[in-house]
């Protein structure tokens, strides 16, 4: 029987419950307040005092109110019908809530229980299965959605019976399994899983070895992220974190995209709500919304649910990964989640760490990022979660606990620079400060040799060298004046500007430029590096800027044209003649 207790203290959304019955850490309970039921999570137990964080406003709550414990941790429902949904941080379906305003204690079902799905069995009677194995499949939008042996089943089971092909609802029994005990277990298409426990129903987790294309040149070319890899984007406000993340969510080469809008602006989520049903996935031609699930816990929604939202999103991503799919998980912004942890730690009067964040913050961040990865499933198939989080450093200072904690675990670092953003050089990713550890992986190096070219990574590091030299040349010019340095300093600076304008900068709102496939990225980088390696003849420094400006303009027109189309070739020959004006043979 579930335990019950009584409220004995209230401090904002921290409530102290008194009970002498059994309670577990992180157990969910319901506080009964008049006709409302407020959901809360146990975060500390001290004798008969149970500290719970309430996922709702506690306004009007009184001591003595009854609290019912559920015996379960915070769980999500996993089954067909998750895609295209807009959930809050606790997986309530936002679209089925009534009224314009959110009502406290209004919890809605995450999945449609009346919808019928065409089920095709994959397992056979008598087959041996274990948790996470595929029993059958249904078509969810354009995705083949596997129905799996519940992840909570331990050991091996025999399929006693499985239904034949046909239409079923999520709660219908589709199979019975037996592990040799007296009674067999029925399996439906829906199962529950606690969000804070990683799903580990896979055989092993090798190192990531291939690249996840995002279509964003400054990522794919200079600092690529691996499929199953982790990355983060820190940057002060106004530097385009969200625009960059939206671009990645639209273009990345993923089967499923889970977006956790964690404590950010509601209007930005509205943009996704309105755009994704219209926009097409550039690779499949289907609407973006069909592959996307949005977890929206905007900044004005209850703080405690903000923490839950990133875990909910991660668990949904793990579920789809186990179907052998390529999942991309985006969280904007993990700093808001850390702040939610800080608020609660503060109310519990824990000793604070740096900037009043909880001392264990880096560990919490590491554990979360570690749930991403490339996995081999029990049946030999593979799936992956690539995770990119944004960080909103206070005051734009990267020496703060959330950025530092994330830097310890995330393998790609995309530093957004205020200076680049001020000069409208978007995406404002700093090419020199940013890094990708994956280009050091032997597996990834081999992948590039095989799939792009032998010399690709050398070209990339050469590009970075030019950018660094260009920056140094610019500093010299600024200190000594235009005519205080030799002309070749100007040339060096402008060659780095060519890379900057043509490769690094990318127009997120231009239908063609916004997304560059790897083949085109390679083509353009080769073209630009050819120019960089050329020698030019200039009389004086004044010629240099106007000449390269002309060249950049023509290269940008190439970027704006469809790959290898007529206009593309027209601008290429225009570029040729510009090059020939000053080129030294």
């Amino acid at each position, binding site marked *: 029987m579930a335990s019950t207790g009584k409220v004995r203290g*209230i*401090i904002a959304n921290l409530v102290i419950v008194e009970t002498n019955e059994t309670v577990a850490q992180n157990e969910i309970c319901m506080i009964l307040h008049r006709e409302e039921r407020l959901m809360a999570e146990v975060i500390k137990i001290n004798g008969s005092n149970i500290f719970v964080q309430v996922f709702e406003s506690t306004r009007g709550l009184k001591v003595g109110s009854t609290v019912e414990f559920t015996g379960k941790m915070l769980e999500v429902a996993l089954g067909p019908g998750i895609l295209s949904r807009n959930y809050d941080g606790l997986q309530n379906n*936002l679209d089925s809530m009534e009224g314009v305003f*959110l009502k406290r204690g209004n919890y809605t079902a995450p999945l449609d229980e009346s919808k019928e799905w065409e089920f095709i069995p994959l397992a056979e009677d008598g087959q041996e299965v274990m948790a996470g194995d595929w029993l059958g499949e249904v078509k969810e939008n354009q995705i083949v959605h596997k129905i799996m042996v519940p992840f909570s089943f331990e050991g091996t089971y025999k399929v006693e019976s499985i239904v034949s092909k046909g239409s079923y609802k999520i709660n219908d029994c589709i199979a019975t399994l037996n592990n040799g005990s007296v009674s067999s277990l029925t399996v439906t298409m829906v199962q529950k899983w606690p969000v804070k426990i990683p799903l580990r129903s896979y055989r092993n987790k090798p190192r990531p070895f291939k690249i996840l294309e995002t279509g964003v040149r400054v990522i794919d070319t200079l600092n690529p992220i691996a499929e199953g890899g982790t990355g983060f984007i820190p940057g002060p406000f106004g530097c385009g974190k969200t625009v960059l993340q939206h671009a990645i969510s639209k273009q990345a080469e993923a089967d499923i995209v889970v977006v956790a809008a964690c404590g950010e602006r509601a209007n930005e989520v509205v943009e996704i709500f309105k755009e994704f049903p219209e926009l097409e996935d550039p690779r499949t031609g289907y609407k973006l919304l069909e592959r996307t699930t949005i977890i929206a816990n905007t900044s004005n929604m209850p703080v405690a649910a903000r923490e839950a939202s990133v875990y909910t999103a991660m668990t949904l991503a793990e579920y789809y990964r186990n179907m052998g799919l390529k999942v991309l998980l985006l969280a904007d912004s993990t700093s808001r989640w850390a702040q939610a942890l800080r*608020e609660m730690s*503060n109310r519990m009067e824990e000793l*604070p760490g740096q900037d009043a*964040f909880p001392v264990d913050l880096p560990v919490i961040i590491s554990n979360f990022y570690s749930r991403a990865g490339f996995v081999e499933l029990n049946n030999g198939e593979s799936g992956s979660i690539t995770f990119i989080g944004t960080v909103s450093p206070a005051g734009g200072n990267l020496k703060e606990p959330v950025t530092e904690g994330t830097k310890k675990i995330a393998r790609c670092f995309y530093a957004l620079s205020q200076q680049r953003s001020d000069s409208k050089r978007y995406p404002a990713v700093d090419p020199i400060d940013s890094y990708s550890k994956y280009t050091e992986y032997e597996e990834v190096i081999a992948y590039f040799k095989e799939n792009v070219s032998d010399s690709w990574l050398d070209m990339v590091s050469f590009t970075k060298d030019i950018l660094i030299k260009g920056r140094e040349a610019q500093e010299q010019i600024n200190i000594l004046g235009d005519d205080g340095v030799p002309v070749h300093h100007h040339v060096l600076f402008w060659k780095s500007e060519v890379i900057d304008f043509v490769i690094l900068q990318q127009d997120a709102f231009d239908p063609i430029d916004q997304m560059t496939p790897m083949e085109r990225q390679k083509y353009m980088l080769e073209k630009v590096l050819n120019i960089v390696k050329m020698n030019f003849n200039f009389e004086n420094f*004044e010629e240099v800027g106007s000449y390269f400006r002309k060249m950049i303009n023509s290269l940008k027109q190439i970027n704006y044209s469809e790959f290898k189309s007529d206009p593309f070739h027209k601008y290429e020959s225009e570029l040729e003649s510009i090059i020939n004006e000053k080129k030294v043979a």
Partner: protein
Amino acid sequence: MEKIAFQKIYTKISKITKATCSLIAENAGYEELALIHKRLAQVVKIIDKEVTLQVFAGTEGIPTNAEVIFLGRPPSLRIGPDLEGRFLNAYGDPIDGGPELTGIETEIGGPSVNPVRREQPSQLIATGISGIDLNNTLVTGQKIPFFADPDQPYNQIMAMLALRTQADKIILGGMGLSHDDYLFFKNTFENAGALERIIAFINTTEDPPVERLMVPDMALTAAEYYATKFNQKVMVLLTDMTLYADVLSIVSNRMEQIPSKDSMPGSLYSDLAKIYEKAVQFPDGGSITIIAVTTLSGGDITHAIPDNTGYITEGQLFLRRDTDVGKVVIDPFRSLSRLKQLVIGKQTREDHSQVMNTAIRLFADAANAKTKQENGFDLTEYDDRTLRFAFDYTEKLLAIDENLAINDMLDTGWELFAAHFSKSEVGIRENLLEKYWPNGKENEKVNINTESDS
């Protein structure tokens, strides 16, 4: 003030601090209001039977046997048509000598809008100020603060802006306003004959500071009433949010909370977001737009208050005094309206985005030239022209004392381009150049120069 019948009166206070009183009481609800020694207070903590009250007006002179009466409701505002034209205090009580409000008692700080029920903001707000309409176009349902130093005329600009925008209602939330500024707002609205469109909630420096914590919620509750009941376009002005946040830190300090950056409470982001996120475009046409003021200390935007604000709001408008033309301008580099692309070129002329970007780019060239000049380097002829352009651009477009229609701003932009540059130097798309470049106005001197360049 409040009906007090059949309510238990407590008379034994166990603890008194600068801001709070605690007593043994039964059946108190969290965030419920109480009267203590005839002062309004709110429940901020309950542990068993001990209830802690935050006394808005401070605890000076409260005796241990003061009368405490619980009111059984959270802070609320009487909402109804008689709000129009009224000046109220932080509790929603009249300060204009008029009659008591008679509307329906409504809780302030109510629930958030379900994000899937929001509409994307899409209606342009014309202010007549080029620094806004041309460079940082505002949209209904947006939330945006002025970042200004305390000596800048932000209150005047806000009042002017509110009156020009044709909003159905203007709701002013004044926090820590000087009495003079309160009278300034009152007179400005009266003189404009706009009083029936105005509702003001005022906390001046003469009032207890903690009271001002209720002002934004009061203003936004009234705004939600007009935006949802009557589908009106409501403009909410909040000045000054820095003084609001300062009180948050005072309260959290008195509640013995651990401070985070700049001695602000760790919940500052959530506290501010709860206010700003009330800005919304409703599906039925009503909207709430929030224009706020965040005063800076010495222009420092890394301080926790402007920093958290910037992460929440949809852009910011920077005020700066330009020493060359001697006017206050809206800084084109540091200002940003994140929602401008929703209306630019859609509700404005097709050349809007190009004129805006080109002007700012040329202005940036001028800034570089200026740096060169200051460092004692020689200026090129192009540098000289950018400097002259920058002067005209600042005077005619950036200064906040101009009042132009957006098309006039664009035309002015084209005239300035033609006066100082050649067509090839502005780098605008060909078809727009043909259509909008003022006839025969291409700077002759410029032409000669570009020819000699190539």
